[in-house]
């Protein structure tokens, strides 16, 4: 299913598509979930400690706004706390938490209606001649590119390129390349097949690389 803004305001990602077998819950995780269900105070602190960095990274990358990301993180963990009794273990705990995070972040974005910095992904895709060779009117990469990528200003351009990705592609890139989730975890979180995740990731990576090339060559 595509990420998007539901008309009714209901949660946007609910169930993985049929055919995706969720990973088996490891026993340590099963024990943690049992303690959460019993409202064991220490278990909630353990969950926050274990997941807050990835949850924040995901929320911040999606919303592109500190305040919204912080609110989304807080809402995510409060939702985990309130709803853990209804967590059936059909997915791993981490997948469930990330799914709540994505939904919380998307709701923030929907309220702000500020998803207007994105650039249509097809605009950045390379073009080819009829023989399948690259059509490039500009040099394909700056000669000092490696050095420039490590430069602080170029780091800002790289963040900007990621922020310009449409949300479906941005979510895949942030989860996989920024936060280091596996394709399977991204698929289970977003309710997609692994093939769909790979396809989005592929286009997102090319988009970011092409945008960076433009910034470098235009000196922006």
């Amino acid at each position, binding site marked *: 299913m595509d990420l998007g803004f539901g008309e009714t305001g209901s949660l946007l990602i609910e169930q993985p598509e049929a055919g995706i077998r969720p990973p088996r819950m490891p026993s340590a995780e099963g024990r943690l979930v049992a303690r959460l269900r019993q*409202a064991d*105070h220490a278990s*909630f*602190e353990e969950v*926050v400690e274990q997941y*807050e*960095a990835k949850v*924040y*990274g995901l929320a*911040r*990358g999606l919303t592109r706004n500190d305040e919204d*990301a*912080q609110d989304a*993180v*807080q809402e995510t*963990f*409060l939702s985990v*706390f*309130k709803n853990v009794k209804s967590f059936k273990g059909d997915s791993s705990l981490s997948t469930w938490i990330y799914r709540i995070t994505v939904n919380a972040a998307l709701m923030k974005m929907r309220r702000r209606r500020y998803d207007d910095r994105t650039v249509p992904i097809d605009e950045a895709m*390379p073009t*080819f001649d009829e*023989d*399948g*060779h*690259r059509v*490039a009117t500009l040099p*394909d*990469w700056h000669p000092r*590119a*490696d050095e420039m*990528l*490590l430069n602080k200003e170029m*780091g800002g351009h*790289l*963040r900007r390129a*990621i922020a310009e990705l449409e949300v479906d592609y941005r979510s895949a*890139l942030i989860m996989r*390349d*920024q*936060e*280091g989730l596996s394709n399977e975890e991204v698929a289970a979180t977003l309710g997609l097949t692994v093939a769909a995740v*790979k396809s989005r*990731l*592929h286009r997102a*990576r*090319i988009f*970011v*690389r092409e945008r*960076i*090339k433009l910034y470098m060559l235009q000196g922006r």
Partner: protein
Amino acid sequence: MLSCQDLLADLSEYLDDGMTVEVRRELEAHLAHCSTCEVLVDSTRKTLKIVSENFSYEIPPEVSGRILARIRTALEDR
């Protein structure tokens, strides 16, 4: 012989080392004589390396503390 377009279609899988030895060999044969694609692969790999190594956001400590405080309050209110 693969074209640049074929290589681009497999770029992400190639970077993730997610293809058969045979396909990889074909892509590498193309890369050996196409400097444009060689630059494409190299630059995309470096860009993603920077994203994966330096781009995760650090959660501000006060946010972390606030979350725990809210959860403790909620638990005590039960």
